[in-house]
Structure formats: structure tokens, C-alpha cells
């Protein structure tokens, strides 16, 4: 893409572009309107801009939306969309239609650096941070865009490892001049990169979903290398610094691995760790990935676990599994087969 994309710029960035071109200041608000309320795909579609303004804009910019390359549909209605990034890499987004809500699960990075043992995305390594344009394009270019009720940042990548662009995209989704969505329609996940998570908590109003998967340091280290640096204990300590109000939700995601993290001991550990945090817990069935040493807990164990936690006052649900047959389910997104081999390593 040779021209710079307008889609993905915040109002203050649009103001700067407009000023640069010597256009009247109000043009920026008009552009934001065309981009984020009407989702036009060309500058020429911005018909209330002067012809001169459109010509000037066209010289340097383009809207920068790119439709998905392809999609797969699951028997349960889940659709997995493949999007190309501006440098010809690929990401996936999963559309999950339900009776009362339609959720899009979007990616924040191509690949991921975090190396969680149970995750397909981890296996492809890290390729790049998505720009705010590429993050939002997953929403804007979705054929079902206008039916969406919710967006979750739970696709490929760790959102807090690309915090600048994630915050920018959140600003555009929630601002009056943007999509003007309530932040309560958005849920951002993290494995607990604490400094960036603090920024997210302070600068956004969206819900926060923390991938926990074990309350015990030694065990969580085996599943998630981040635990060596930012422990679950420190993470919960950080959460205690904030007042989340009544509307904002903190949830803990807990993938259940057979014989690993699904015992009564773990229920106790969770209760101890989360003591005093107003939160809910989502139990997730593990979708085995190729050559994985882990297996999913059976549903009976999951129900036992849910009931034990619920009895102790933590709202706990078993998340319905979606799109497993097309590898669109949680932790299964990967575009590894589309990557070029990199032979330049030091090991």
C-alpha cells in the first residue's frame, strides 16, 4: 500500500492531516464521520467535502479498507475470516453469531511472542504488531459488520504487547466522533503484561479478560512463560489498585487441562488468589492442538469446578465452544502455513 490509510486515525490525527493540507479544520470531523459512521471505502465517496479537498486528500491518502480474503464457516454458524495485512501477512478474525448477540473476535498482532504452551498462535512466533488500521479493518470490512453487538480482542496476539494501537482502536470504537459504541460492548484479553494492563485500565473503559489458567506460580510458569516475569499474584495485586465501578467487568479465563489444573486444590487456590476481587470466571474447554502434551478436562469435571466456585460466590460459567471444526475456537487461530520460512536465526 503506497498511500497512507485514513481509516484507523484518531480525530486528533485527522486534524493534523487536514491542517497539513491547509484544509479547513472542520474537515477532520467530516472525514471521521465518513470513515467511522458511514464506512465509505474511497475518498471520493466523501461527497460533502469540497472537490479540491478530495483531490488533495487522494494525493497522499486512501481510506485503506481491505475486504477479507476468504472465510470458512463452521457447522455452528461461526465464521472465520482471513484478512491480509498491509505487508502481505495474514490474520484471522472469528465471527460468532448467537441468538441475542453477534460477537467478532479480532486479532491484535500477526503471531505472538508470549509462547503459551496451549496456543496455536504461539507456534507461529511473532511477525508484527497490527496498526490501528489493521485492527479496525477486521470490523469495518466484515460482511456482517452492521449486525455486530460485541467485539472481543481475543484473536491472535497479546493486546497488551501492542498497547498503543489497541488503545487507538478502542478510542475510535468508543468516541462520539467514532463508532460511538459503549465500551461495555468490548472485551480485551490479556495474559497479564502488568505495565501495559495498567495503561489499559487507566485509559480505556472496556472490559478486561485475564487469562489465568492456574492459580499456582510453578504450574502457571509451565503453561505460560509470562508467569516468570509478571506473576498472577502481582497481577491481582495490581488490580486491587483500581476501582472498576459497577459497570466494568473483570473476568478470568481458565482453560481446563485434564489432570493439570482441574482439581479441588485449584478451586481453593483460585479462591485464595482472587480473594476480594469482584470478578467472574469463564471456564473454557481445551481444544487440543497438534502434538500437544495437554488434554482437555471432561465436562463433568468442568461442571464440578464451576459449581464449587459458584458456591463460594464467584460467578462461574462454562464457555460454550464455538467453531472448533474450522479451528476458529479459542486458542486455535494461526496463519502459520501462510508464512515464509525464516532461516536467519542464531540457534
Amino acid at each position, binding site marked *: 500500500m503506497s498511500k497512507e490509510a485514513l481509516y484507523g486515525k484518531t480525530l486528533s490525527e485527522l486534524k493534523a492531516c487536514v491542517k497539513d493540507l491547509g484544509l479547513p479544520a472542520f474537515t477532520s470531523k467530516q472525514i471521521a464521520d465518513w470513515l467511522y459512521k458511514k464506512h465509505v471505502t474511497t475518498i471520493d465517496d466523501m461527497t460533502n467535502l469540497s472537490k479540491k479537498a478530495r483531490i488533495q486528500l487522494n494525493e497522499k491518502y486512501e481510506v485503506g479498507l481491505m475486504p477479507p480474503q476468504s472465510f470458512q464457516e463452521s457447522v455452528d454458524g461461526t465464521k472465520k475470516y482471513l484478512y491480509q495485512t498491509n505487508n502481505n501477512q495474514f490474520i484471522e478474525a472469528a465471527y460468532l453469531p448467537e441468538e441475542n448477540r453477534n460477537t467478532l473476535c479480532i486479532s491484535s498482532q500477526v503471531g505472538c511472542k508470549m509462547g503459551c504452551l496451549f496456543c496455536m498462535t504461539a507456534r507461529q512466533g511473532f511477525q508484527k504488531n497490527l496498526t490501528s488500521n489493521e485492527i479496525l479493518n477486521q470490523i469495518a470490512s466484515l460482511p456482517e459488520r452492521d449486525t455486530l453487538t460485541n467485539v472481543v480482542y481475543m484473536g491472535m496476539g497479546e493486546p497488551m504487547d501492542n498497547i498503543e494501537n489497541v488503545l487507538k482502536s478502542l478510542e475510535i470504537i468508543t468516541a462520539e466522533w467514532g463508532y460511538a459504541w459503549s465500551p461495555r460492548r468490548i472485551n480485551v484479553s490479556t495474559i497479564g503484561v502488568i505495565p501495559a494492563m495498567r495503561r489499559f485500565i487507566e485509559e480505556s473503559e472496556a472490559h478486561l479478560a485475564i487469562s489465568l489458567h492456574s492459580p499456582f506460580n510453578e504450574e502457571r510458569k509451565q503453561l505460560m512463560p509470562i508467569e516468570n516475569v509478571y506473576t498472577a499474584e502481582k497481577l491481582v495485586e495490581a488490580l486491587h489498585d483500581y476501582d472498576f465501578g459497577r459497570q466494568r467487568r473483570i473476568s478470568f479465563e481458565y482453560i481446563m487441562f485434564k489432570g493439570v489444573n482441574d482439581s479441588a486444590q485449584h478451586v481453593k487456590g483460585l479462591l485464595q488468589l482472587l480473594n476480594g476481587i469482584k470478578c467472574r470466571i469463564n471456564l473454557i474447554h481445551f481444544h487440543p492442538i497438534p502434538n500437544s502434551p495437554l488434554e482437555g478436562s471432561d465436562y463433568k469435571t468442568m461442571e464440578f469446578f464451576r459449581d464449587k466456585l459458584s458456591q463460594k460466590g464467584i460467578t462461574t460459567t462454562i464457555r460454550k465452544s464455538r467453531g472448533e471444526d474450522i479451528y476458529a475456537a479459542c486458542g486455535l487461530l494461526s496463519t502459520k502455513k501462510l508464512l515464509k520460512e525464516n532461516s536467519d536465526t542464531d*540457534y
Partner: protein
Amino acid sequence: MNQHKTKELKAVNVISNELLTDDVHYISVDKPFDFKAGQVIAVAMQPTDEPRLYSIASGISKKHLSILFDVKPEGELTPPLSVVKPGDTIYISEPFGKFLCLDSPATWIATGTGIAPFISLVESKQANNVNLLHGARTLDKFFFQDYLEEQLGNNYQRFCTTEASEKTTEGRLTSYLKNSENLPTNNKYYLCGSSQMVIDVREILIAKGVAFDNIIAEIYF
């Protein structure tokens, strides 16, 4: 808003800045805190900057605290950090982290500057019954090799992908692991370095029969 600044940073005096090879520096500063070998500190040029994390690369009883890093030319911190002089001030956090590598027998695996925590562990005399494998692209990237060789003897193996020498094995660390007939499957494995290395090595170890709960990794993300 940032009323909860990430970590309180403390001003420390730079003692030395040693260039180990083209773009790799070993910086020592005053040691205001005690720490455990294997821990990290956050480092910044100014107290208001977003700090970056570094493994402590010196022993717990040493007078000074040191880090080992390579310069990312486009990076925010490492270019200015690479030109600090004795007497300059930089900012560091209290040590933290749990990559303590306490179990043995163990195999420690590092690439590049991922050797840093293992240097600290060896200098802290916490390297009993361990094998250290280090992978690097060129021969000058085996930092502190004389010291490690002296301390660990044959339990220290170097793998160089582009150059050959008497003391190193030519080729990739991953090829060595893949071709190894008798990897000790009951050892603890501690991995430190880039995310891609950790993922590749972990996959090989698991395929070789090492249980996932015997593999612990620190990723320099």
C-alpha cells in the same frame, strides 16, 4: 492519569560500560537492592520513560549489579543506554521475577543475550549439576565463555551457526537437540531467549519425551 506508575524507579550510578562485541554491552551500576539469581530489573534513562526489562547478569554477592544487552538500532532505550559513561545516572526498578532455576539436575538453554540469567546463576554458585547449552550466530557472541568454561567445564556447550572453532559445535542448537539420542528426559529444562527459540526448543523437547512440566522458559518479548 497514570497515578499508579508501573514501577518505582531508582536512580543509580553507572560504574562501567563494557563493549563485549559489535553491538553487545555489559553495563554495571551501583547495587541498591539484593536480588535472587535469575531475576530481572526494569531499566530506563529517565524516571518517566517506559522502562524495558533486563535479566540481571551478575552474581548475587558481587559489589555491582550488571546487565547484558544488544543494541536495537531503532529501539528507544538501547541506543542511548549503549553510550552511558561511568558516573552517569540511569534508573532501575527493584528486582523481580521467578525464573530462579532452582531445580537440578537441569539443562539450561540460551541463545544470544538469553545467557544473562545463567551468568548470574553461575556467578552466584548456583550451578550444581547443570548443563549449559548456548547458541549464537558468531563466535564473538559467546559472552563470558572463558569464565563459563572455567566454572562448568564440559557441562558448557557452545553451538555456532555460521563459524567453526575448536571449542564450539558447528550448527544449530536445535539440530543438536533433534539429533540427540539420549537427552535426559527427567532433567528440568530452563530456556531463556527469544520467543521463537523457546517455541522451537520446547517443541523438540516435548517430541523427545520431556514432560511439559519439566520445561520452564523466560521469553525476552
